[in-house]
């Protein structure tokens, strides 16, 4: 992953000096390990700050909503799918964008790594496929495959679907991954068991809305959680309110979620929020054969009507 950065910088510098774009959206090193920050580069000096490694798990498409002017954006597989979703939903025009595609081999899961060690993780170095994690009194080298974020481990669209230029050779897509293993497991439970499963899953939620803010799909000017007339969801920590929030958020992502994992990545409590969107993704796959963000010309199933749409649930 780290080898792409020279090429990324070269492209970024070129498109900026040629005046093709006004800024390039990428990542810079964060103030804590494993947390890269989004970075808007507008000059040669700020391009130098760009980094690319296995901690770029945030979704940069989030920063495109309703932007004016021309923008260069560094996009891995999931970012590019969300850019496509943005274009389809008229949130940005394709010709405003210069997409620098980056084939991705997955991002590492900082929740998992922090949980593996007792002390604070102070430094994470990456070289090729191995990751060295060190802190006060410990240092360990592990293979990246073991540390992948859950969504990256089952990702089947590692290469960008839409790009103007690539920063490296396309990587081989993962085959034979069961994307929906966790969903199938929950589907087998009874109604009560399911209810308890999700009750436990959500019990640590503190309603910080980090998942909503990190999500590239969540761009409503006024989010339903902030509406008070009528108030759709209470602002308390009551389990019903928490659940209503997560369910409604998931419905808003139906047929649009690309499983980029940004929500889980930013959750301070490490809740597996993808359990909800995953189920809807599976339904979209089963009912309409649809995966979000793969083509600029196709309309998503929930905004078109076809006479052969499934309707068994209607009496």
């Amino acid at each position, binding site marked *: 992953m780290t080898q792409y950065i020279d090429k990324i910088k070269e492209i970024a510098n070129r498109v900026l000096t040629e005046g093709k774009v006004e800024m390039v959206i990428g990542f810079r090193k964060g103030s804590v390990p494993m947390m890269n920050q989004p970075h808007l580069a507008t000059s040669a000096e700020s391009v130098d700050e760009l980094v690319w490694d296995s901690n770029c798990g945030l979704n940069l498409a989030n920063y495109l909503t309703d932007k004016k002017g021309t923008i260069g954006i560094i996009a891995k597989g999931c970012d590019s799918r969300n850019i496509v979703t943005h274009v389809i939903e008229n949130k940005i025009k394709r010709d405003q964008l210069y997409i620098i595609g980056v084939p991705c081999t997955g991002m590492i899961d900082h929740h998992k790594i922090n949980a593996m060690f007792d002390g604070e993780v102070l430094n994470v170095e990456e070289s090729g496929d191995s990751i060295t994690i060190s802190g006060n009194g410990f240092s360990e080298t592990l293979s990246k495959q073991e540390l992948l974020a859950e969504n990256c481990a089952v990702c089947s669209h590692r290469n960008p679907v839409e790009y103007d230029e690539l920063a490296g050779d396309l990587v081989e897509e993962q085959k034979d991954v069961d994307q929906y293993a966790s969903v199938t497991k929950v589907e087998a439970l009874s109604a009560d068991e399911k209810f308890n499963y999700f009750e436990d899953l959500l019990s640590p939620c503190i309603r910080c809305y980090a998942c909503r803010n990190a999500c590239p799909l969540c761009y409503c000017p006024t989010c*339903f959680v902030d509406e008070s007339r*009528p108030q*759709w969801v209470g602002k308390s920590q009551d389990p*019903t309110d928490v659940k*209503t929030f997560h*369910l*409604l958020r998931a*419905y808003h992502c139906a047929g649009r979620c690309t499983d980029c994992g940004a929500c889980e990545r930013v959750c301070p409590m490490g809740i597996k929020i993808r359990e909800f969107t995953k189920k809807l993704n599976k339904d979209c796959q089963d009912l309409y054969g649809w995966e979000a963000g793969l083509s600029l010309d196709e309309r998503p199933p929930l905004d078109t009507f076809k006479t052969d749409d499934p309707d068994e649930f209607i009496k």
Partner: protein
Amino acid sequence: MAENEPKILSFLCNWCSYGAADLAGVSRMEYPPNIRVIRIPCTGRMSPKFILAGLRQGADAVWVSG
């Protein structure tokens, strides 16, 4: 209360099911009194919010009809 009398929150489309309900009334047909009807201008007005809000406030079941 001896028998279980559930409350069923019903969202009926003005042009379809609401009309049917009206016709049922005019024709003096009998049906269970457990439904609580909310008339919506069209089933397109329906939103997942309504269903969850209904359940949250204690409806036993929700019925959406176009």
